[in-house]
């Protein structure tokens, strides 16, 4: 009796918590509404499963609890029932998987002509590099990193000279333009994570990973690191500011190019971007 009742209350309480609690995903600020939709679809299918199984269990607990004189039925198996359950479950799984894979396909295919922006992680802060007038990022190599060249941009690659180096952790992006973020780490694993954008990807030393999105809402968002990277991990913060085209252009023109930063740094004592 009591046990069955508590099990029903567990289901009811969980549902109540879901619908009444104020804790929801942050309002989305990118094109990845599809991700939110697949999460919602998953919620409905799995919730149906949870409620059905636990309520069925609770009913059995109530109906078939031990009473004097009761004897259980003897039924080793029922292949028809088992086959049906297998089929229904498979259908449920396919319903979840199919849209999930479709959206994943979009997630990993950046649109042609997306603006390329590089995010570089180093214990424990963010830097960025944007292409200059040539719209191309120059080559880079960790082994070239030094005080005057914190991102290891290759001085011998002409495409890199006009690259804009953003070392203060604040990245601006224009509204409504697809961006392909190229992700690079100079030391350990990090992960580019902006909750409102929904996208996420690790930065791995030794390779360049990527993700893409289109910012859809003007605003200021926190960039966090979502891969544990040592004691400073929670402090590894950056800021993403989504601007109108004009504001963005103004910000862009105020950034130093790679070439400028090297000139201004000759003889200077600017140190590498650590701690």
């Amino acid at each position, binding site marked *: 009796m009591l046990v069955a009742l508590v099990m029903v209350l567990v289901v009811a309480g969980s549902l109540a918590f879901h619908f009444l609690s104020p804790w929801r995903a942050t309002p989305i600020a990118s094109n990845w509404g599809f991700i939110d939709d697949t999460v919602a679809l998953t919620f409905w299918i799995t919730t149906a499963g949870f409620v059905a199984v636990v309520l069925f269990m609770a009913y059995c607990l109530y109906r*078939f609890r031990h009473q004097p004189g009761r004897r259980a039925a003897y039924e080793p198996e029922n292949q028809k029932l088992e086959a049906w359950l297998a089929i229904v479950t498979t259908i449920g799984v396919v319903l979840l998987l199919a849209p999930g894979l479709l959206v994943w396909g979009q997630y990993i295919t950046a649109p042609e002509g997306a603006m390329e922006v590089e995010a570089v992680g180093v214990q424990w802060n963010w830097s960025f590099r944007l292409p200059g007038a040539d719209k191309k990022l120059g080559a880079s190599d960790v082994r070239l990193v030094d005080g005057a060249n914190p991102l290891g941009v290759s001085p011998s690659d002409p495409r890199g000279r006009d690259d804009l180096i953003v070392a203060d952790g604040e990245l601006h992006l224009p509204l409504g333009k697809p961006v392909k973020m190229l992700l690079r780490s100079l030391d350990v694993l990090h992960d580019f994570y902006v909750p409102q954008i929904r996208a*996420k990807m690790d930065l791995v030393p*030794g390779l360049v990973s990527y993700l893409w999105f289109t910012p859809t809402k003007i605003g200021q968002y926190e960039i966090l690191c979502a891969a544990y990277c040592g004691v400073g991990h929670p402090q590894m913060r950056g800021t993403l500011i989504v601007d109108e085209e004009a504001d963005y252009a103004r910000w862009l023109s105020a950034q130093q190019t790679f070439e400028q930063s090297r000139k201004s740094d000759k003889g200077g004592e600017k140190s590498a971007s650590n701690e």
Partner: protein
Amino acid sequence: MTDLTGRTEDAAPPAEVPEMELFHAHSFLTKYVFCQDAKVIAIQYAGTAIAIGLVALVLSWVIRIQLAFPGAVALIDAKVYYQAVTMHGMIMVVYMLTAIFLGGFGNYLIPLMVGARDMVFPFVNMLSYWVYLLATLVLAASYFAPGGPSGAGWTLYPPQSILTGTPGYDYGIVMMLASLILFIVGFTMGGLNYVVTVLQARTRGMTLMRMPLTVWGIFAAAVMALLAFPGLFVACVMLLLDRTLGTSFFMPAIVEFGEHKAYVGGSPILFQHLFWFFGHPEVYIVALPAFGIVSDLISVHARKNIFGYRMMVWAIIAIGVLSMVVWGHHMYVSGMDPLFGFFFAVTTLAIAVPTALKVYNWVITLWRADISFTTPMLFALGFLVTFVNGGLTGLYLGNVIVDVPLSATLFVVAHFHMVMGIAPVLVIFGAIYHWYPKITGRMMDETLGKVHFWITFLGAYAIFFPMHYLGVLGVPRRFYELGETAFVPDSAHLLNVSITVLALVVGFAQAIFFYNLFTSLKRGKPAGGNPWRAASLEWQTPETPPGHGNWGDEPPIVYRWAYAYSVPGAPEDYIPQNEPPIRGELSS
């Protein structure tokens, strides 16, 4: 199924393997310390696992206190916090759960349930425990090494785990790796024993398809562990070499705080593949024994055969096989080739099918049953609820694109605690309440057991269910402190406090269990040989607790499966596996 004539030969085929010679202990030391009896080794394994598990429990309080009251305890700085998270996770998964299910329940139950006198290699079995103990001590000792234990996270991902930004990068990580290597060596000795014993030492009539699901679960888990642990083993050895000799298996060229390191050309992602090639099967190495045990608890206390036994066995095997090819779901956003995402999402969701079938069969077993709400049964039911809940959130994280926003948030933490933390721990408790009478000859107190159950089950659910919502909100895991984070509303802090308070309550409530465990040794009601009126073989031993060699002069002969409950026409509502067949009975 054939109609029996009442002759032994029809129900129990002749034995194929002769009886084994036993090692007989003569001194106190060889009887209770360096003992080769699997039952004693089981107690040693379980005792050690529980002891180190308590350390991990206390560490979880350290984590929770910091998360709810950041900065309130000056002692908990970032370094201490990450060391606590790392040790908590590693101990719980490897040194507690794996050890107690395979080393503890495996050792106690396999020989008794298949009608063997002992494990087939008793000496190696003993050695397995002592190496495990050594591994545990080395791990615990890292708390006293200069710099303390590793704070690399239980996943130990390089390059971070062996660089100076991580606590314990000097001694702690070396001791952690050495300890894991020892653990695997010890486990391999035990694991071979469990597998060979199940294959070779079953008593006459104990066909594979008559074995209790507990044995099937432990057997499949042991096979998987023998295949999966080598992945971790080589990863540990290679990482140790990177750390001590400066090789570059996992280390590319990097700049550490402005300083160029000598490493070049290694792959951090390779480590992740090796780690999760072990790490995912590990989830099922813990889960399959729990599945098996829970099947038996439900069946005994509901007085009904487990529904769809053959399906249950095949599901265990299917899960075992599939779970070797799903490891990549831990790496969807790791920077590996994103095309892998398609493959691993399909395999991962495919596993949901056999897993769901097991869940259906458990609840269908309750249909038209005769259910007693004993303490073991309550824990089994608690397992069902938490496992279904945690299993379903696995469908979020397995479905590659849904994982993207949720990965590395508290949603993941809530999910894996529900499915492989709480659910298996509830099974462990249920199993202890269930088999305690066989192990000690006395019953544990039912009232205390029920109080313990309700606090633990409801408390743990209330800890981890709401935690999912912090993850949905976007709160990242492995954050020593959230600090100023605009997207997290202040109300979330309330939730954090409530989780921590509950974690402390549930933690301290375990004292009820230990009080019950120890006082029942002397004061518990005498149990007799078969207090639950169970059909499986371990309850049919001539002595309780079973003596050395388990079966007295003659090993039992098995005539039927382990689930002959409420068989129509039978005088009792159970027929022991070793009771000679009744004329007209159907053989199964």
